[in-house]
């Protein structure tokens, strides 16, 4: 397969950056998208040129490190996959492929296709946890009765890998799907209810501080999310936030 790639190249955070054209030949349909970029980088290194910087880690679709906005869609044209699980068979010989970084003011470009997603970490630090003393006397989680429906929904929310595709694809660069998944996974479980009010207030406050946009319920995030996180979580976060605002003591 022969392809024309239009890749965003940017030396550092202060560089203006631009799309650069590359031609690549001999691409197999069995390659993953990242393996195709590996081939390109090998060719660039052999020519003495700077390879394209991009994020990747597990390459198994579970770590949330890989990103890329491919032909106008987060993680490319396939559904429920991360870029590392996107295969070149989804493209045709002779195609032109636009490869851009995830774009949001809260996700500044570090270099080429690598963006700084530490805004998500700071939101997690604001409340995406439960306070449990690990003194050796921790209660067995299985000893606490949990409604099956709530356990399933909490688990579904917890499958969010924090890749940022929701932000990248949202026309408003809103992070509400991510934050709502993190709020929901605890709000639905007895262990998380104790700190539920302060958690949602703190996480939403941090989300707003980071400069993400506002959700307008287009539903694009749900479609592009590699883990299929539901918009139901955003409605739950809205309920949790409004209820906490009016009933919390702080």
């Amino acid at each position, binding site marked *: 397969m022969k392809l024309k790639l239009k890749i965003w190249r940017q030396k550092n955070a202060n560089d203006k950056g631009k799309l650069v054209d590359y031609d690549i030949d001999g691409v197999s349909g069995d390659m993953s998208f990242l393996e195709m970029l590996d081939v390109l980088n090998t060719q660039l290194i052999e020519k003495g040129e700077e390879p394209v910087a991009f994020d990747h880690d597990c390459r198994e679709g579970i770590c949330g490190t890989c990103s890329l906005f491919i032909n*106008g869609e987060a993680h490319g044209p396939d559904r429920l996959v991360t870029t590392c699980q996107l295969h070149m068979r989804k493209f045709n010989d002779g195609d032109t492929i636009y490869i851009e970084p995830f*774009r949001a003011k809260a996700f500044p470009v570090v270099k080429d296709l690598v963006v700084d997603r530490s805004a998500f970490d700071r939101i997690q630090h604001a409340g995406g946890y439960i306070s449990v003393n690990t003194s050796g006397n921790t209660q067995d989680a299985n000893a606490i009765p949990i409604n099956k429906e709530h356990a399933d929904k909490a688990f579904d929310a917890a499958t969010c890998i924090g890749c940022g595709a929701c932000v990248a694809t949202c026309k408003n660069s809103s992070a509400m799907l991510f934050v709502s998944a993190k709020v929901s996974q605890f709000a639905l479980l007895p262990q998380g209810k104790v700190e539920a009010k302060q958690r949602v207030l703190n996480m*939403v406050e941090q989300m707003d501080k980071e400069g*993400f946009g*506002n959700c307008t*319920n287009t539903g694009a995030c749900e479609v592009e999310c590699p883990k299929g996180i539901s918009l139901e979580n955003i*409605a739950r976060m*809205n309920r949790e936030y409004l209820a906490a605002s009016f009933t919390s003591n702080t």
Partner: protein
Amino acid sequence: MSWLKKTFSSSIGRKFSMALSALFLLLFLLQHFVINFSSVISADAFNELSHFMGTNPLIQFVMQPILMFAVVYHFVMGFVLEAKNNAARNVKYAMYKGGANASWMSRNMIYSGLVILGFLALHFYDFWIPEIAHKYVRFEEPDATRYYGELVEKFENPMRVALYVLAFVFLALHLTHGFQSAFQTIGARSPKYFPFIQKFGKIFAIAIPAGFIFIAIFHHLTA
């Protein structure tokens, strides 16, 4: 009350207040349609209902100011949120396939809203400003029989009818997304009833504007 200010200046608080104003405007739209539709059935019924709405102190001095506030708030907050959302992506994509994962209506609420704003300016010029001038500037004697004639007269001009039809098409597009979006934002989303809200919202979004279009064309053709 700083917590209240904090709540309603947060991203969720702003969206919540937008949704509340939207739900109020949906109710207003429904009652406006019911009263206007009475003009198709009976001129006397329309005159009676219009006179009641135009002279009842509760409607005039409580509901009308709330309506004005809801309209202004919905538009102003719509523009504020649009500006904030645009600023949240300072470098745009070279290629962005918005249509691959979201409907045109959901992505273009600001444009359908702008058309509705333009229509409101025409609508106020046609009906609301003359009504306010009649009652509160010229202090003319109440006349319970004038409303039907004033309504029919406005729809004699085919250009005005065409503009009304266009505006209601955009209102339908706005409501197709807006109806269910308001419920999602206030958190009223359960697998039990949300599919009904989505379906009912689509019917409402098409039926009410279509009804207004029917009323305009009916009076144009029968005048």
